[in-house]
């Protein structure tokens, strides 16, 4: 059983500070939905508003079209997984998992049965009598999920639960979370500042900045067609090229920068006019070193400053004539041994792989 969650004009204020401002979003039943944003952007506040720990100052939270105002966290069909998991250290694993049943007066045998079922779901069969501190990080994670699922909530809320894990485990838990969500088929609302997590797990994501929603959409949509410079630079990496619009050709706009003219694609909802201050964005992986026969819409002269080896990619840091910095990545499979610090080369990129947006502040500012 899953439920829709709708935030309708939700604002949360602390004094004169808006932790969340006019947030409108509808999460569909059974969806894996992520709120993505830097720390302090208000995403945790929204989660607390959905779970009932924080009443919105304005607006409404609706779960299954039912207004949740005045309904406490212990009465909502939601379960929250805390950032530090908040497992009960003085209880055994089974007691933790069955706690929500215990408080509802479910009999001991029934509780044991359900705990065993859930232990099986999280692949921890037979470990119910252990104490929480005897478990590894990933196991604790799974126990927290099982505990939240014990009463069959309609919505599971997750507050950056993977942030304390090391990289490998985090990557494995992403897959596991996604699998568990498919199996139990309930709505997952996930909070994270890690765009990798959000992109790999979610059906849709909402990008937040300073309490406001910047963009809601499918992962590839948000990545490929960011609506604001903030989204362009927060979700994945992006090189900004600042300039003025000098020409419009269909859905493309020509931008004049200090280093030359480039052609980039406009977003349907963010049409530009000639003379507008704007930014064209091109991602590090969309910048290519042209080979014979390649013909790119845009060419850009750069001077290599330094590079780093990331494993699958080699990242180059270069400067343009005007002093602007640019980063590009080349798959490790391509031989780049001739390019070293100080080399001057020409890069190419396709206008279809570059978006142009009205000027606004970036995530990295």
């Amino acid at each position, binding site marked *: 059983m899953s439920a829709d969650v709708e935030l309708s004009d939700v604002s949360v204020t602390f004094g004169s500070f808006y932790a969340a401002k006019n947030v409108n979003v509808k999460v569909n039943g059974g969806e894996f939905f992520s709120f993505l944003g830097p720390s302090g952007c208000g995403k945790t506040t929204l989660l607390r508003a959905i*779970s*009932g*720990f924080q009443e919105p100052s304005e607006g409404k939270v609706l779960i299954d079209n039912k207004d949740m105002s005045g309904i*406490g*966290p*212990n*009465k909502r069909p*939601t*379960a*929250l997984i*805390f*950032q*530090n998991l*908040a*497992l*009960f250290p*003085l*209880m055994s694993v089974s007691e933790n998992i069955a*706690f*929500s049943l*215990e*408080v*509802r007066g479910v009999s001991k045998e029934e509780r044991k049965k359900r705990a065993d079922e859930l232990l099986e779901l999280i692949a921890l069969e037979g470990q119910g009598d252990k104490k929480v501190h005897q478990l590894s990080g990933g196991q604790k994670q799974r126990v927290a999920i099982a*505990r*939240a699922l*014990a*009463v069959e909530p309609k919505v599971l809320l997750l507050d950056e639960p993977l942030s304390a894990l090391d990289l490998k485990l985090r990557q494995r838990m992403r897959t596991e979370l996604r699998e568990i969500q498919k199996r139990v088929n309930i709505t997952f609302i996930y909070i994270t500042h890690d765009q990798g997590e959000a992109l790999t797990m979610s059906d849709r994501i909402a990008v937040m900045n300073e309490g406001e929603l910047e963009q809601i959409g499918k992962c590839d949509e948000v990545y490929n067609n960011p609506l604001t410079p903030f989204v362009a630079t927060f979700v994945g990496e992006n090189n900004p090229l600042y300039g003025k619009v000098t020409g419009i050709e269909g859905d493309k706009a020509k931008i004049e920068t200090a280093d030359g003219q480039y052609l980039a694609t406009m977003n349907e909802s963010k049409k530009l006019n000639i003379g507008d201050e704007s930014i064209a964005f091109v991602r590090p992986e969309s910048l290519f070193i042209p080979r014979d026969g390649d013909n790119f819409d845009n060419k850009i002269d750069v001077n290599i400053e330094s590079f780093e080896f990331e494993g699958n990619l080699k990242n180059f840091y270069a400067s343009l004539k005007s002093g602007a910095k640019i980063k590009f990545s080349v798959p490790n499979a391509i031989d780049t041994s001739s390019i070293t610090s100080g080399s001057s080369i020409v890069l190419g990129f396709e206008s279809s792989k570059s978006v142009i947006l009205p000027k606004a502040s970036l995530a990295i500012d």
Partner: protein
Amino acid sequence: MNNFLFTQPFFKKNGKAVAIYFLVAIIFWFVFLVIIPQFYMLDLSFRTNVPPLARGGPEDYYTFEHYSHFIFGSKTATDAFNFVDLGVFGRTIFVSMLVTIANLLFCYPIAFYIAKIANPSTARLLIVSLIIPFWINELLRSFALRILFANEGVINNFLTGVGLLDQGILFITYDIGLYTGLIYAYILLMMFPLYNAIESLDINQIEAAKDLGSSSFRTHWRIVIPHAKPGIVSGCTMVFMLTVGALATPVVLSSPNTLWFPQLIYQWFNMNDNWSRGSAYSIILLIVSVIFVLTMMRIFKVRIGEIIK
């Protein structure tokens, strides 16, 4: 030998001077202020009560008479048991237990409020207002309560003055003043261990319980109280021990008809000039209180290490 001592981690960590100071201070405290007086009392409690000049003489010998006096009374008494002293003792232990429980019930909500609900500035204000009255000496605080509770005292005058009562309540006669005074006397020793224990609980634990559907009561019962157990036991132990041994408050506040056990001890020492019997009574109080506390710890499954944390 010297070298061996100075290469110990304790010396390396603290430096020679500080380490020697610690050692000397602790040994002095333990030997001179704890062991020697207690052993002296223990020894005295098994000796006949003779004037100092007769010490070591034929009349000074070891005997159980003071302990048997506590249980069976004087040799000339007609009762089978010393009902008076046993009664005072039993009442002291029993009332101290109630005082401890009352203290716990009273302090727990306040400690929880200060630790987890109040914002930092309110919490500070509350802690300060808890502490300030204790800048005043215990005896003076007891007298202040006496003024409040006296038959013609502030409370009775107020109640009769506004016409709520025709006649004042006999707070002192019925020992209500004493119980209030005892509860109040050591309240901080319950408050602070409780506060510290609750304060260290991760607020997410409480929220997680709530989110999982737990009522407030159950959250306290299953999450907060188990976490705070060492603090609860530590507070209860201190309050119980000090209440059982309280002297100033009972002297000022108890009704003329009743005695608190330490008052009895005081009488043997100072009024009847029988230090041996006073010592015996002190040892009895000490041992019974310790056994009582250890039993409670056993029942509530707390280890001594947890308490001193």
